[in-house]
């Protein structure tokens, strides 16, 4: 049985004017255990809405989302979230941010300290434990956010454009780091991005979403060993294929 199962999910938002808007329409897919699964699409295609449903922040209007067979009804530890703008608590230090979920899990103090130390090391932030988030760079903040999510030992890591606000060098570096962490910790990752290259570089499978209403049109399997060199012909070709396909869906089906 697939670990995550999304079945015929539709979501209606109410716009500011009070009109109902179909944000997602009959979205279905499954994600296997330990899979790195990306959802890629242009901004406004509903991918963040989909992630919010998976996180349990919102409920679907139709259809159902399941994890390990159980319905998703509220946020929880087994689905930790890494947000685009990090969402670190500004009033807590790096160590306190990472310990936040551990405290809520009511782990013994010594175990909390051990885990905080482990994840601080894993994301390469030794020596910064007592800093406040505002004292860190964007890349370092995102590492704290990843460490905080991993520390609660989630089965699934939900990542919402986590590297979108980083500069290109930091971004590529963080992608490599994420892959290393993923290979070491063996988590299921559901990764939302608008970057096709990023999705292909990282993922086992890439779901392609089209907007208005948000719908998953196609899921591509990336069959290539990691680390992937995005300048290799096979990768370039796959990326070009996805881009061409997405452009067709976006601009040739609707009048410009």
């Amino acid at each position: 049985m697939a670990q995550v199962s999304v079945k015929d999910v539709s979501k209606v938002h109410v716009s500011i004017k009070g009109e109902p808007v179909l944000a997602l329409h009959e979205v279905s897919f499954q994600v296997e255990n330990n899979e790195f699964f990306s959802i890629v699409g242009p901004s406004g295609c509903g991918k963040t809405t989909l992630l919010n449903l998976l996180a349990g922040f919102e409920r679907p209007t139709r259809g159902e989302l399941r994890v390990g067979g159980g319905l998703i009804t509220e946020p929880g530890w087994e689905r930790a979230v890494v947000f685009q703008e990090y969402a670190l608590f500004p009033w807590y230090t790096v160590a306190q941010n990472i310990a936040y979920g551990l405290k809520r899990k009511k782990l013994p103090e010594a175990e909390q300290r051990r885990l905080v130390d482990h994840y601080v090391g894993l994301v390469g932030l030794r020596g910064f434990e007592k800093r406040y988030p505002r004292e860190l760079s964007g890349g370092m903040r995102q590492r704290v956010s990843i460490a905080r999510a991993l520390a609660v030992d989630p089965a699934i890591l939900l990542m919402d454009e986590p590297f979108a606000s980083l500069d290109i060098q930091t971004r590529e570096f963080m992608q490599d780091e994420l892959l290393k962490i993923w290979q070491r910790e063996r988590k299921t990752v559901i990764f939302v991005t608008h970057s096709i290259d990023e999705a292909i570089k990282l993922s086992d499978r890439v779901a392609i979403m089209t907007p208005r209403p948000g719908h998953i049109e196609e899921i591509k399997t990336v069959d290539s060993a990691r680390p992937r060199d995005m300048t290799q012909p096979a990768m370039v070709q796959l990326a070009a294929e996805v881009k061409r396909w997405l452009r067709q869906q976006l601009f040739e089906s609707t009048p410009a």
Partner: protein
Amino acid sequence: MDGDLGVRLEVDTRAPRGTGRDAASPESLSRLAASMVPPSPPAWRRALVQLLHLWLLVLFVVVWELASVLGERLNPQLSIMLPPPTAVFSAAQDLIGRGVLLTHIADSLRRVLVAVGAAAALGVPLGLAMGWSSAFRRAMDPLIEFIRPIPPLAWIPLSILWFGIGDTQNEYIIFLAAFFPVVLNSMAGARDVDTYLVRAGLSLGARRRDLFLTVVLPGSLPNIFTGLRVGLGIGWMALVAGELVAAPTGLGYMINNARTLFRSDYILLGMVLIGLLGLVLDFLMRQVARLAMPWYQGR
């Protein structure tokens, strides 16, 4: 574009100094940074530089003095209409000598602190609750917005009926002035807490009380302190109204009393002291905010 420009790019493949990931600790880097800037000047010099910034204030006092003294020569009545700073100063000496000025100051401070303390104790929880629960906000909002425009002065007759004559009545008037800024800013604080922080808290297992104490409350603190600063300022401004009725002491009383005695030097002294002490109170409140929110500095 192409062609030999006579420049050869040399790539330094050694690890960059001091920037490698496992290079110097943050502590040793901050020591390095400190060694690169000149030491800060001694405290007395910094204080002197700060004082030099007050030139406009000094000029203001000098112009005031000259205007009053010269004006008095033209028209003797002017000494009553605008006594010079020196007259205000000797009024202060006079009242200190009679041992009453410090009592006025202490009693006014006590009344304002009691009133603003009460405004904080009631206003902060009420405002946070209104910001947190939109149902509660919708119920409270009309009531708050209906009472808010009523000036504290208008409450004086009723407050005398309710509290009689004494400190409580004085404090109630000051409380009314301070209460609404505290409520409204606390409400804005709880309302404006970043949705993503609330969601992060939820997904990390925080619920209800825990979520409120670890996310909503600290997230509201900057606005709460803004409310307390404004509330303290307006409460202090309401001092004269607060001590209008039957207060036996206080700076507001002093001003009201001097009015009946035609002592404009005492009136100005009261005004100057209210201004100076207001400045000090606001400074102290900002220090409390800094201590309460070490993570918020520099913004």
